[in-house]
């Protein structure tokens, strides 16, 4: 289980799971899968399995939590105890608290927060299985859940990470690459507006490497964005087919 992994990129330039440095893991997305939520989405990215739900806009209880001139956005990122190798306690960890905050801050720029004062929107993200890059996949799913709920948005938000392993800048790190690699740069984007809504980094990168990583992450974001749009198109197409 705890074998020390020496090489993350082999002689052919392929990564541990056979991917090329600029290749995304396989992504599968679906929306409207939870009957009780106003909006919902499910994403699989590599071994990540993440569920996102959106509720609202709705009145907040107790009322003093609401703001008179705008909406309140609340977000909870939570990992299931069985989502990781060593069972994780169900109580919110400091990491989950921080991620809940940064995920909320990555989605809020897309929402017309002044449109429905005195209401709130709740976003719940449940990580059922984790393999690196969960915050990015969570943002991708949460933004779809918001759109699925019919909440007016400026743009969809999509996220993807890039990093450095074995001296190479790579896209969409899985857990091993994140742990053993040298740097991880998650980026969230509103693609039509070219606006970065989440940016974090840990590791050591020169300025050039950092710029390369951000470029690569954004390219990854745009690929996933096309998939987000496809999900809605497919929903319509499937209805059309029933008719024919």
């Amino acid at each position, binding site marked *: 289980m705890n074998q020390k992994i020496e090489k993350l990129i082999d002689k052919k330039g392929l990564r541990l799971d056979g991917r090329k440095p600029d290749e995304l893991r396989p992504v599968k997305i679906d929306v409207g899968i939870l009957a009780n939520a106003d909006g919902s989405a499910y994403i699989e990215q590599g071994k990540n399995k993440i569920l996102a739900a959106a509720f609202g806009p709705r009145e907040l209880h107790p009322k003093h939590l609401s703001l008179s001139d705008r909406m309140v956005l609340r977000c909870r990122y939570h990992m299931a105890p069985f989502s990781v190798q060593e069972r994780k306690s169900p109580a919110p960890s400091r990491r989950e608290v921080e991620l809940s905050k*940064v995920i909320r801050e990555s989605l809020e720029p897309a929402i017309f927060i002044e449109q429905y004062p005195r209401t709130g929107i709740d976003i719940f993200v449940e990580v059922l299985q984790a393999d690196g890059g969960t915050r990015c996949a969570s943002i991708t799913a949460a933004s779809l859940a918001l759109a699925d709920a019919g909440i007016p948005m400026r743009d969809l938000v999509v996220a993807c990470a890039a990093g450095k392993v074995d001296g190479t800048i790579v896209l969409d790190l899985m857990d091993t690459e994140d742990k053993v690699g040298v740097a991880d740069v998650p980026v969230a984007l509103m693609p039509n507006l*070219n606006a*970065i809504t989440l940016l974090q980094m*840990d590791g050591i990168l020169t300025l050039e490497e950092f710029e390369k990583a951000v470029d690569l992450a954004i390219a990854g974001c745009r690929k996933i964005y096309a998939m987000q749009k496809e999900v809605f198109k497919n929903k319509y197409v499937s209805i059309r087919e029933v008719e024919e």
Partner: protein
Amino acid sequence: MSSLITRVRQKQIVQLMAKGKRLDGRGLNDYRETKVEQGIIERAEGSARVLLGKTEVLVGTKIETGEPFSDTPNEGVLTVNAELVPLASSTFEPGPPDENSIELARIVDRGIRESKAIDVEKLCIEAGKNVFVVFVDVYVLNHDGNLIDASALAALAALLNAKMPNYEIEEGQVKIKQGYTPLPIKRHPVTVTFAKINDRLVVDPWLEEEQVMDARLSMAIDDDGNICAIQKGGTGCFTQQQVFEAAKIAREKAGEIRKKLGW
């Protein structure tokens, strides 16, 4: 939060920013007056106090022994905690750490950890069994903006001031001896925080600028100008151009601060 600043003031700050000016007369890339004092809490194994304008942060480090993590058996352990104590601001409430203090602690932690500031292997006493555990406790005493940079600075200054007890291993038991050794610090990361106001980036936002800003970007830079940690905060966004511009300025400012403090 914006109820703490009047609309008139908000407008003033935003309008001046369009002309590239700040209300307190600083240049867009200027820090407020910075003072760093070390060794003020004797009971702590290391301590430092930073004044960044009127923002005041006190950091104490405690060094104890304990078990290492299973995946790094011969490395010491670093734990950073931050407290936004109620006396520091009318907006801080007593209680367990909220998302702001947790985020602050984790940003400070990342700057130190990712830059490998502490030589954690030298903290190993007995591999797999006993290592030095370094507790860094950030205590915000007055909030006048940019808690991140002030806390990161104070944390590093406290670590540079910290000492670990000498020990020897006698018959499989760790015995504390007389005397101390300075904590082995090999890198000096400095965090530089920007606020985005009216589409402009300003360094070291003070409280009122923070209340008006769209978004915040913090970058930790090491001695060689490498980027070690980044955190975007707030509900606004940045363009790629702004991010890269910030990185260049951050590297410059970090170098200046290190030089000024003789690190």
